[in-house]
């Protein structure tokens, strides 16, 4: 009796999350899976067909996939390079100043990201802010960063930096700085203390931040669409175009989506495996 009631309560408690996951994750996933397995045309013809997966293997797709991978890795790397010192700096400040710095890190997330990306277009375009600045400094050649891979990486780093800073801050803040003193005392220079003590002990933060930024950057489409132009398409743009631009090909779009999800799932599985081993 008692047990039955407990079970009923548990089911009731799990109902919202089950509904949420079912309606907004599993059902769309199922729809995508179904669409990937039918014929294209108008936008889909309900006829079982696996040819979308053949079209998926187009060498052009491989090229775009490799580009997405490169840009995502580069973004993650730059975020790490910028985010680690920033997180370290914040963690070392007195508590009151920390709150203010947190606020500044989060600030870009509060504004509309589309508007912010347009702002970057203004900054990066020819005769924009950076071009004028370089010109004033004596560089004669006009440069345009807009519609280059560099612009995409700048935009992505700008978008995803908070996702790197927070997990890093979490591990650095928990870190016992006496350990750094102990390392110095035993003869370690600042760099050695960082490499042998601080970095290994904040590795969970590095891994979590990198995973968040990498996954997000890999699936992005707004930043490359606005800052990358036609020449720097990423996987996300490819998916978007197959659904919304001509030539429309929903089954291919669905297959592209599933391929990306599969790739990311493998990445996340690998992350958890590494994490479990080191714990």
């Amino acid at each position, binding site marked *: 009796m008692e047990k039955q009631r407990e079970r009923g309560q548990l089911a009731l408690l799990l109902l919202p999350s089950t509904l949420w996951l079912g309606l907004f994750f599993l059902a769309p996933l199922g729809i995508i899976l179904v669409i990937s397995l039918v014929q294209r045309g108008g936008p889909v013809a309900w006829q079982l067909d696996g040819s979308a997966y053949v079209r998926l293997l187009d060498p052009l797709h491989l090229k775009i996939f490799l580009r997405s991978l490169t840009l995502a890795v580069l973004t993650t790397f730059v975020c790490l390079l910028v985010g680690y010192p920033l997180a370290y700096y914040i963690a070392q400040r007195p508590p009151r100043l920390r709150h203010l710095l947190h606020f500044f890190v989060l600030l870009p997330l509060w504004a509309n990201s589309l508007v912010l990306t347009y702002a970057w277009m203004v900054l990066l375009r020819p005769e924009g802010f950076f071009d004028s600045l370089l010109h004033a400094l004596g560089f004669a050649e006009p440069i345009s960063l807009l519609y280059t891979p560099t612009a995409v990486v700048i935009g992505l780093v700008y978008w995803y930096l908070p996702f790197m800073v927070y997990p890093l801050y979490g591990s650095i803040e928990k870190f016992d700085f*006496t350990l750094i003193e102990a390392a110095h005392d035993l003869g370690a220079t600042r760099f050695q203390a960082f490499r042998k003590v601080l970095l290994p002990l904040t590795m969970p933060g590095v891994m979590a931040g990198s995973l968040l930024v990498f996954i997000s950057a890999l699936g992005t489409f707004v930043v490359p669409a606005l800052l990358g132009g036609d020449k720097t398409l990423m996987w996300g743009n490819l998916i978007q175009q197959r659904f919304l631009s001509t030539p429309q090909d929903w089954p291919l779009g669905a297959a592209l989506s599933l391929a990306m999800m599969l790739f990311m799932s493998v990445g996340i599985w690998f992350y958890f495996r590494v994490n479990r081993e080191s714990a």
Partner: protein
Amino acid sequence: MDESSVELKNLSKQFGAHPVVRDVSLQIKRGEFFSLLGPSGCGKTTTLRLLAGFDNPSSGEIFINGSLANGAPPYARDVNLVFQSYALFPHMNVYQNVAFGLEMKKLSRSQIQPMLEEVLSLVRLTGLESRFPKQLSGGQQQRVALARALVTHPSVLLLDEPLGALDLKLRKEMQLELKKLQRKLNITFIYVTHDQEEALTMSDRIAVMDHGRVVQVGRPEEIYEQPATRFVADFIGETNFIEGKIVSCDPPWVKVDVQGIQMSALGIPPYEKSREVVIAIRPEKIWLQKEHSSSSENQFTGLIEELVYLGTDTRYLVRLSDELILTVRQQNLDHSAFRKGDRVYLGWPAPCAQVLHPETEA
């Protein structure tokens, strides 16, 4: 100069406007077990950190092995610190923790191995090389911290309350073990503690600190038997403080009037008559008797107000007059001890009572 391992000259440190270490000058001999003793906030740990190089002095000089160490980074100093929290690297096992200092010195594995075996057997940790810190007991962690600091053969070992986290029994064992270790290795130990018993047990010399200053430096028995100030007498062990006025002076003896009762005590002249002074006397130096003793001049009568049985001895509160109650400790040698309300005779050999300068009170 050749003799001293560490020398501090007029060392001061302030954080903002707050002085933490004030004008500390000390000479610590090679191979000496030297303790910095004082209550929390007295500046002892800061002094140690200045020695290790984690903080820079606001003024004054630090000499290690005769050369000026001011401004030298911690990794360039021939001193190692055993941290209060041990600060063991949690991601390294015992072997890696202890080998850390040697690896930083760029020694090869074949050079490290024998040194590591030696130091681990010294601190009795052989066989635990592959354990991680969290898999060790508090006492074992403490030993790893010790081994890690000793393996590089520093000329000075700094210890910041290293036994503070251990339980009483283990702490007593480790006190003796540390002392033995220090004798064997003949390394200068500078030991920070707030535990007077610990300092008395282990030290060759002790510097008592209060409010950033060194109040007294001396061997344990000097600190205990001849405290320089009321602070030292109060901090180290238990002391009766008796306030009175000087009646007469016959160097080195001083006769003091305490509410009509006259007492003799040891004092350094000159003392002018009717000046107010404080006499310090340890509870265990006072004898208690049921009968009058004909031979003693410092003899008084009192009433036992309260007694506390402490196992090896009993603590009595004896009232001599309306406003004078003394604490007396007597070893429990027989069962014919005193009872509450007993009239007793008490007194002490005059050399055991000491007149303190009022102006040197902390």
